[in-house]
């Protein structure tokens, strides 16, 4: 078969223009397929790692998905709050290494405001257990200080020292501004590609302070407590929305989860973020499947191009094949020759695609990670991609059977003297 390989190579080189274009089509379609697969994987990982390093998320009893949606993704609202006392009791469990309380409900120009403690910046992790970083400034210390997510700062053009006011509730309804108590920007976080970028972070006490003269979702008529006297009040919150827990040992997570579920003070729910995120991905994952399906269709177009070029070349190659027959090639050699050519084009296309995708991942990966929260794109070929590549090869072999079979039939009919 070695002489055939030489002949196949030279024959292919002789038709390099049409085969080159076919190679381009195959390369592009396989590149698309590989990129979609790689980005899909990275998006999935990035999504699953929107929050990492947190062992349990605890909130009022309800749907676990809902709890993750409002604590991690700023989507939806809690149906009930958690008593401060319950939080303190559970955070004091000896298995708990750290705890971060979360208070949601206010917003600033459509971006959600999160009331928390400085421990949040210390313990919150995303992606591959990456901590939050400040591009400028630091965490809040004073009462009316705010730390902005990267997107909030970028979209609204805030810088350190700027002052802003918060709105009550999530919607930009006029008249429900905490206009009398402006906040100063003291820190801006680095982009994470997670919902953290879209949050404003203030202290729990600040949330209490701006609601001192409020009741039932609106200002109490005739009562106005100026910003400079709020510190005379007790700013310890009575309730929070949810809290994050980190454990000394991961193995304790299920025991603690059961313990929280059985907490007597009020009905609570603790979820493992990874499991809930996986469930959530199942529902949004339909998009990735559709993308992958479209990529396969594009690949099918590439393959039809290959088959069409091979079939079209057969007429001009009938003499060539007859000459090969006369020097001793059998019809199976002809079959092999044609399949070899398709195989070479496909293999070369696959190789070029892997190189292209890896170079693209190397060059564009960090940018994608920052912009879209993809986990870092892998440079090497993953086992999943290997399966994909073998699928591509198998499909190409199957398709190449068609022109090869036709060449086989032609060479049987033509014999040594093609009747052209």
């Amino acid at each position, binding site marked *: 078969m070695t*002489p055939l390989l*030489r*002949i196949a190579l*030279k*024959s292919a*080189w*002789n038709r390099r223009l049409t085969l080159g274009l076919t190679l381009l089509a195959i390369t592009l379609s396989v590149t698309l397929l590989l990129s979609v697969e790689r980005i899909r994987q990275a998006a999935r990982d990035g999504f699953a790692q929107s929050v990492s390093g947190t062992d349990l998320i605890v909130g009022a009893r309800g749907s676990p998905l809902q709890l993750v949606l409002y604590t991690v993704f700023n989507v939806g609202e809690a149906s009930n709050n958690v008593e401060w006392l319950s939080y303190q009791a559970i955070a004091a469990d000896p298995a708990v290494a750290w705890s971060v309380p979360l208070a949601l409900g206010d917003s600033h120009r459509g971006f959600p405001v999160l009331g928390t403690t400085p421990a949040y910046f210390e313990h919150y992790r995303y992606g591959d257990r990456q901590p939050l970083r400040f591009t400028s400034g630091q965490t809040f210390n004073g009462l009316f200080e705010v730390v902005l997510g990267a997107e909030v700062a970028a979209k609204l053009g805030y810088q350190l020292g700027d002052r802003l006011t918060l709105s009550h509730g999530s919607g930009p309804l006029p008249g429900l501004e905490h206009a009398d108590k402006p906040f100063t920007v003291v820190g801006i976080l680095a982009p994470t590609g997670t919902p953290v970028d879209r949050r404003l972070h203030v202290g729990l006490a600040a949330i209490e302070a701006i609601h001192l003269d409020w009741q039932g979702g609106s200002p109490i008529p005739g009562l106005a407590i100026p910003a400079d006297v709020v510190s005379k009040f007790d700013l310890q919150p009575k309730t929070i929305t949810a809290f994050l827990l980190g454990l000394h040992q991961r193995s304790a997570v299920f025991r603690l989860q059961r313990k929280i579920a059985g907490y007597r003070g009020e009905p609570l729910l603790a979820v493992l973020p990874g499991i809930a995120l996986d469930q959530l991905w199942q529902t949004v994952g339909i998009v990735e499947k559709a993308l992958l399906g479209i990529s396969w269709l594009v690949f099918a177009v590439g393959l039809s191009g290959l088959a069409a070029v091979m079939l079209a070349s057969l007429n001009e190659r009938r*003499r*060539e094949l007859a*000459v*090969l*027959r*006369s*020097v*001793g*090639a*059998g*019809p*199976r*050699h002809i079959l092999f020759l044609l399949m070899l050519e398709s195989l070479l084009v496909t293999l070369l296309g696959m190789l070029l695609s892997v190189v292209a995708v890896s170079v693209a991942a190397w060059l564009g990966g960090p940018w994608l990670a920052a912009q879209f929260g993809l986990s870092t794109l892998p440079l090497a070929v993953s086992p999943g991609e290997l399966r994909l590549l073998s699928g591509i090869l198998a499909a190409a072999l199957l398709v190449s059977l068609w022109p090869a079979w036709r060449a086989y039939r032609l060479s*049987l009919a033509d*014999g*040594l*003297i093609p009747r052209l």
Partner: protein
Amino acid sequence: MSTQALLVRNLEFRWPGDDSFALRLPELAVNRKNSLFLHGPSGCGKSTLLNLIGGVLAPQAGHIELLGQPFSELSAGRRDAFRADHLGFIFQQFNLIPYLSVLDNVLLPCRFSARRASRVGEPQAEARRLLGALDLDPALLSRPAAELSVGQQQRVAAARALIGQPEILIADEPTSALDAERQAAFVELLLSEARRAGSTVVFVSHDLRLATHFDHSLALAA
């Protein structure tokens, strides 16, 4: 060892779906190292006969024996191998693979037949010798075959048919694309190299003037 290189008896062939015979040949025998001129007008089943002798077609009835072997009874794969080992072909035109160099074209049979490769020992040297003997400019050896004139191509085809000393050389109108004055010279060169290789020659042509160069001559009935 059989003294006949080629023996054909009661050969009948028809194409599938066609009732009339494409070829009927009661007898054809050529002794080893002889040369036979087969005269056939077009449409006499000449190419069918060559396909049958080459083993790419199998007869419905009758018998073909090559070098004492019952060739037509072999499997298609064995016939392919036999063709590679023992037969050399020259056709009217388009003998060469256009994108291969002259030298690579001549060496093709040695790539498909270990027997022919081992007979020449040094294939490259033998290819150069044959091409020289057939009067081809050595400067052309590494050029793609497509760049050669028709006359040069036919000489390359002859060299390819003869390399590795196949027992049987089959030439199908190899001179019809050449000028009249070059035809005789080509036939003489071909026959002398065939004698040197010890090959039996079956030469098919419609041009009776060439018959004088051959040991025997036979007309195929239309």
